[in-house]
């Protein structure tokens, strides 16, 4: 019997690129940057995930989706490891992810700011409206419908929209 070659890390990442984030369904878990490692051995596959936020309620769903994507591949048992360090940052998002977010109506995260804490932020710097591209936008709340987003409104097209927060 010919032994089947084990898939490489890249091949596993390619398989996982079909798993979409349940809360931002235009981004795969790979594009989101939460898949940190993937390894196949004769015993099965180990996938290492770093959640975006400690209490992210989508984690269970994401783990189930990752399992589903791999279990049909005949790779053996799927083990999912969760690591918290180094902590996830929006800088890990893939190159195409920012364009996909904007096209979907979510302003992409700005580049991660310095680690310095500014307890009283001056009015947040305006970001571009993903709908009409105006810069006349205003932040309404730093907390949005999910932990990873903030709420904005465009003063030109009057469209409320969300921004993926830089962390």
């Amino acid at each position, binding site marked *: 019997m010919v032994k089947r070659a084990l898939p490489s890390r890249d091949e596993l990442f390619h398989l996982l690129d079909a798993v979409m984030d349940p809360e931002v369904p235009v981004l795969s878990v790979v594009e989101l940057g939460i898949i940190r490692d993937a390894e196949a051995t004769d015993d099965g596959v180990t996938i290492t995930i770093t959640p975006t936020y*400690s*209490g992210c309620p989508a984690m269970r769903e994401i783990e189930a989706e990752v399992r589903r994507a791999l279990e049909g591949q005949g790779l053996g048992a799927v083990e999912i490891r969760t690591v918290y360090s180094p902590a996830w940052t929006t800088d890990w998002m893939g190159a195409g992810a920012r364009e996909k977010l904007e096209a979907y109506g979510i302003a992409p995260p700005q580049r991660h700011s310095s680690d310095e804490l500014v307890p009283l932020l001056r009015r947040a710097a305006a970001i571009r409206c993903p709908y009409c591209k105006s810069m006349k936008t205003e932040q309404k709340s730093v*907390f949005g419908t999910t932990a990873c987003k903030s709420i904005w409104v465009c003063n030109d097209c009057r469209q409320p929209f969300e921004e993926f927060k830089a962390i």
Partner: protein
Amino acid sequence: MTAPAFFDYLVRLGDDRLVLGHRLSEWCGHGPILEEDIALANVALDLVGEATLLLKLAGETEGKDRDQDALAYFRDATDYRNALLVEFPKGDFAFTIVRQFFFSVFSLLQMQALQQSNNAELAGIAAKAVKEAKYHVRHSAQWVVTLGDGTPDSHARAQRAVDELWRYTGELFMADDVEADVVAAGLGVDPSTLETAWRAQVDDILRRATLTVPAVNYMQRGGRAGKHTEHLGHMLSEMQIVARSHPGASW
């Protein structure tokens, strides 16, 4: 031997966040405006998320087959180790915000220091929590200034909250044998070393908010030793009833 002390220490860290997260979740559907309702629920979710990780690690450290759910749902009030500050009912919006501000500044300093813990798991949880706590500090500090330097009514409510809560802030910085053991082992941080930085930041925001620190010389304590106010038992009875009525249930 540091294992029991490290367990106690992790339970203190976890319980502060679990109890405060639960109190905050009581605002869900009752926030003063929609954005704030969502914001408070988001902060609650962060805190309960942090508590989940800390209590899970506590259970693993203890090695008696208790996971985060066993620790959250099957301990009585006398076994909880949160500071008294976090267990009071949510009060009005000013009370919630002022408490949130006091705790968030403390939590950020504590988690920043814990990133250097010898325990890699705890250091990782802390690194994650630092990012979240920065948002919490910013959110609550902005509200403290808005309320304190706002209308006569919002100012009075914010000042009343500061007056009521101040005597419970001291317990956050009190250290006993548990902290001494984990500090000696390089696992934890001595909270008393955080007080100067906490006070500087709190004073700065309160000044901008035109709020004053009350003349209180005695700081209440008890929570870290399991001596709680009557409020915690009521909160836990509500939080734990489903898990205790249907032990082992999953959904």
